[in-house]
């Protein structure tokens, strides 16, 4: 039990990250692959992992939008107007708070989370928990556990996910795997979520409007 202000501050995520690169302006060259079915990828620049996710998405032809901790401005100026005019598909690597928020705002536009995974970084590596049909992603991570997992996730979303994942609200599953990412990640425990918000298939209107 704590006051409202202190209760919130006691649960404050430091969200320190490692500063991260400006994800919207990666220096790497783009891949020549065709523009993805994902219209935009958004990342929280507070988190080091998001840099890898953003770079891979960008190289896959996906425009990147980054924000720092608070998604308000990005949602207000870009996501909301975009979802008003067309229910564009958005992928992200963010904190749970951002995902929680955007998921509910997306409901207003008939959109849903169609892919979601939790990535819990700890000193021993990162534990991944997936919802939906993510066997091939798990396989990718398991076969290269020392490579940056955000790269695997982004590649998988760009290449495999349309086939395996876009069927609607993802059922909970117990798919778990571990990547040892201490080669590039900062220390400390952080929980991130990779996700895709899209109009579920088949196209129809949703509850919560």
């Amino acid at each position, binding site marked *: *039990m*704590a*006051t*409202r*202000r*202190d*209760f*919130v*501050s*006691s*649960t*404050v*995520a*430091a*969200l*320190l990250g490692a500063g991260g690169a400006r994800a919207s302006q990666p220096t790497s060259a783009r891949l020549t692959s065709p523009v993805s079915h994902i219209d935009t990828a958004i990342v929280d620049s507070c988190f080091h992992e998001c840099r890898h996710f953003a770079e891979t998405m960008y190289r896959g032809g996906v425009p990147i939008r980054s924000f720092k*901790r*608070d*998604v*308000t401005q990005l*949602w*207000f100026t870009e996501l*909301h107007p975009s979802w008003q005019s067309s229910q564009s598909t958005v992928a992200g690597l963010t*904190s*749970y*708070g*951002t995902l*929680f*928020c955007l998921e*509910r*705002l997306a*409901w*207003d536009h008939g959109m849903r989370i169609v892919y979601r995974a939790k990535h*819990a970084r700890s000193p021993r590596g990162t534990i991944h928990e997936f919802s939906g049909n993510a066997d091939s992603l798990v396989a990718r991570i398991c076969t290269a556990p020392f490579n940056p997992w955000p790269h695997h996730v982004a590649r998988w979303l760009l290449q495999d996910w349309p086939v395996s994942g876009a069927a*609607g*609200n993802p059922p909970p599953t117990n798919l778990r795997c571990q990547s040892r990412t201490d080669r590039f990640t900062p*220390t*400390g*425990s*952080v*929980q991130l979520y990779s996700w895709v918000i899209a109009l579920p298939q088949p196209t129809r*209107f*949703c*509850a*919560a*409007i």
Partner: protein
Amino acid sequence: MRTPPGISPSDFSAALEQFARVCTSQWVFTKDEDVDLYKDPFSPFLGEPDERWASAAVAPGEVEQVQEIVRIANRYRVPLYPISTGRNLGYGGSAPAYSGCVVVDLKRMNRILDVSEDNASCLVEPGVSYFDLYRHIQEHHLKVWVDVPDPGWGSLIGNALDRGGGYTRPQFRNHFDAHCGMEVVLPSGELLRTGMGALPGAKTWQQYKSGFGPWIDGIFSQSNFGIVTKMGFWLMPEPEAYLTGMVLAAKRDDLHRLVPLLNHVENSGVTNGMPDLGSPLLGILSIEEYAKFMEDRPQPPPDPELASLQDRAEAGDPSGLEAYGTRKGMAYWTFKLKFFGPAKAIAAQWDYCKEKFSEIHGVRFEDGPLIRLPLSEEQRKNVHWPEFGIPTLNMFSIGARSSTNSTPTHGHMWFSPIIPRDAASIFEANRVFAAAAREFSLPILRFSLPATYWERAFIFIFGFPVTEDVATNRKNRAAFYKLIDIAGEHGWGEYRTAPAYQDACMSKYSFNNHALLRFHETIKDAIDPNGVVSPGRYGIWPKHLRKS
């Protein structure tokens, strides 16, 4: 799909079919994957049998459709639960108070019907969020502010009917008080307008609140006497400037003078922003310091000497802490006063406050910067947006798992009693709630200061975590109920609560053998004999569901 209790499957199907005829089937939701979206994500019963559930949902787009839905519900005795946007998380969300209700989702009714810069008012439908109105104001370059709660993603009407609060001037940050006129679909399906809205041809619906005869608007807040489909609000004219001034006092007992002086300057309208109370020595951050805390790295823990002195101060001996504060230049209390208005006027207002607070021995003052409004982009980066009428989602960025927060909670529920606006009550409430926390093994931080949303009363707002662990949630619920009892014994009542606790809180307002609740029930029986609108909301049950 589940059927509401006591309703036959055939009747329920017939009702849903008729809802679909009214709204088209596209806007009637019966599949679990749709209806589950209306669960309260912060339910204190998360994953337990008592977690509230909806049987279906219907989303009308016009007031006539709402009327027809209510008539159909009466025909089949189907309970309804109207929501505006359902985003009052921590106070119930979109889940019904009574499981089995059909949620009437009003988000499609999202028209901003009028915004008058001259009258500084607006008229909106329930689906209009603070963001929607803020966007409209910005796009039309209107010189008015809407007072927003934090977070600001909810509905103006929903928040006002829940009697929520914000952060600007007193008459606006009390969101229900800021309303002017409403339109209500009564449980019979009849349409009612209050205030000047009852006078055909009147152009003063959003200008004069009370109209003629009994002023009934209040009975539609925190209640189940109708479905509000339009509501007017007074908006705050954009002020010319903003100024803050800090009052710093060195002694624990100074609080006994600080609060009456604060009351005087606020009740006189000399300070007109939301006062912000803090205590550097006790580690209680002001709102702005807290916002900064969120932006920066967490502060290091206090030095051991300070922690020890804080313990002694809480045990009743503040002398060591006061001496520490003198040595380190740290104040015991900080009262940040805020002023909106013409630059010259608010500078004079702050001068007057300094004169008044100077009666406290040793008091110091810090002048804040004068900010010319509107805020520049650069200035926006350094302020708490809601204090400037700017809605934000920032609140959601702070609960993630991190190196400093290894056990994030699933959600929260707020325990928020109203206490008298005096220092003795602050000390007494801290003593009582700290003792209760020890008794029920609740984690509690050190001495707490109340919030100042309301003009003439304090409110303590304590957060209880909702976790994914059923046993922990059960323990927290039990403690919550005990705290309601303990608060009630001291004359402190909740201003608002989640459905799980509404009966318990209402039971404390028991003067003259619960005359108030009995009056609520009398109204309910008269205007909603079938009990179709929001049964159980705020402890008001229709006769057929009422416990003896």
